[in-house]
């Protein structure tokens, strides 16, 4: 009996997922997605300001980095493959060598004196600019990720 319920709910979930692309969303889903859209826009605006203050000197306004000194964020495999890791690096900096799009970078990155909300905003900005499409980075996720950061 229990297994049957599980199977049915699994099927239901599958059905919901497969219908996700459908325009016939429920009222509730519409509200959530439009709320996220508005938040994404807010985060992009705030994130752009934070980016120009703390990040653009090295990573440049166009996110392309500088030669083999500072890695690119635009089209960066390293950034886009692990958002939690990216949040930790934004907050705490990075001292070890990393490989971005096949190139090794070893220049020290300092941590940034910003709140988790600001990390969410700037991470949203860099993962959704210059062709990157990472979607909204919610502050609840950031809280979780920052708490779980490895010690330097």
């Amino acid at each position, binding site marked *: 009996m229990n297994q049957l319920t599980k199977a049915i709910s699994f099927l239901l979930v599958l059905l919901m997922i497969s219908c996700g692309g459908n325009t016939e969303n429920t009222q509730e889903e519409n509200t959530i997605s439009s709320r996220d859209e508005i938040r994404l826009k807010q985060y992009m605006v705030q994130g752009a300001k934070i980016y120009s203050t703390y990040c653009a*000197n*090295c990573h440049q306004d166009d996110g392309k980095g*500088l030669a*083999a*000194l500072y890695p690119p964020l635009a089209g960066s495999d390293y950034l886009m493959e692990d958002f939690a890791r990216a949040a930790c690096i934004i907050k705490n900096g990075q001292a070890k060598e990393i490989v971005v799009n096949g190139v090794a970078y070893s220049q020290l990155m*300092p941590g940034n004196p910003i709140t988790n909300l600001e990390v969410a905003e700037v991470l949203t900005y860099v993962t959704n600019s210059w062709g990157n499409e990472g979607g909204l980075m919610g502050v609840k996720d950031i809280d979780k990720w920052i708490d779980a950061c490895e010690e330097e």
Partner: protein
Amino acid sequence: MIRSEYLVFAILITLIGCTSTPSSDKLPIYGNKIFEENDTIYHTVEDFKLVDQDSSWVTNSTFEDQVYVSDFFFTSCPTICPKMKQQMLRVYEKFENNDQVAILSHTIDPKHDTVAVLKDFANKLSIKSNKWKFVTGDQDYIYDLGEKSYMVMADEDPNAAGGFIHSGAFLLVDKERRIRGVYDGTIDEQVDILLNDIEKLLREYEPTN
């Protein structure tokens, strides 16, 4: 009547305002001048001796018959230096094939920026060392050189990001070692002016017909 006086005043102000961009093709000469008999002695960069990224000595004679752009930075600088290096790359790229132009970047953090660190930094920027020299030396000596010769400030400051406080200035030095231009090396538009001024300065050395 009063109105026309105002007009004259306004024109005067405009004229005064324009003197900072003289219509002549010559760049200004910066620093104190000493007038001696019929001669004017201008401020010049004093004799110096530093080591570059290839462990070679760099002195004034390294830049003989060259104009050069000078700045002060450090490789681990998290604030304005990356922007300065990005802008200096514009100077490098524009005059890469012009033997009359060179670049001299002084580290203000010699304890960290050894020859090997500077070499690595230069390699990562993919630059040729005969055109763009990164130099190190005694810290006090470099600060002194910055202050007295290039009229820029650099100092250790544990409260500043990266531990140093310094100016983001680019200085244009002519073949007589005189300072002919001071630019903010973190601002695109200022470096546009510098690129233009280098050409203007080089024209001074072209034989007149």
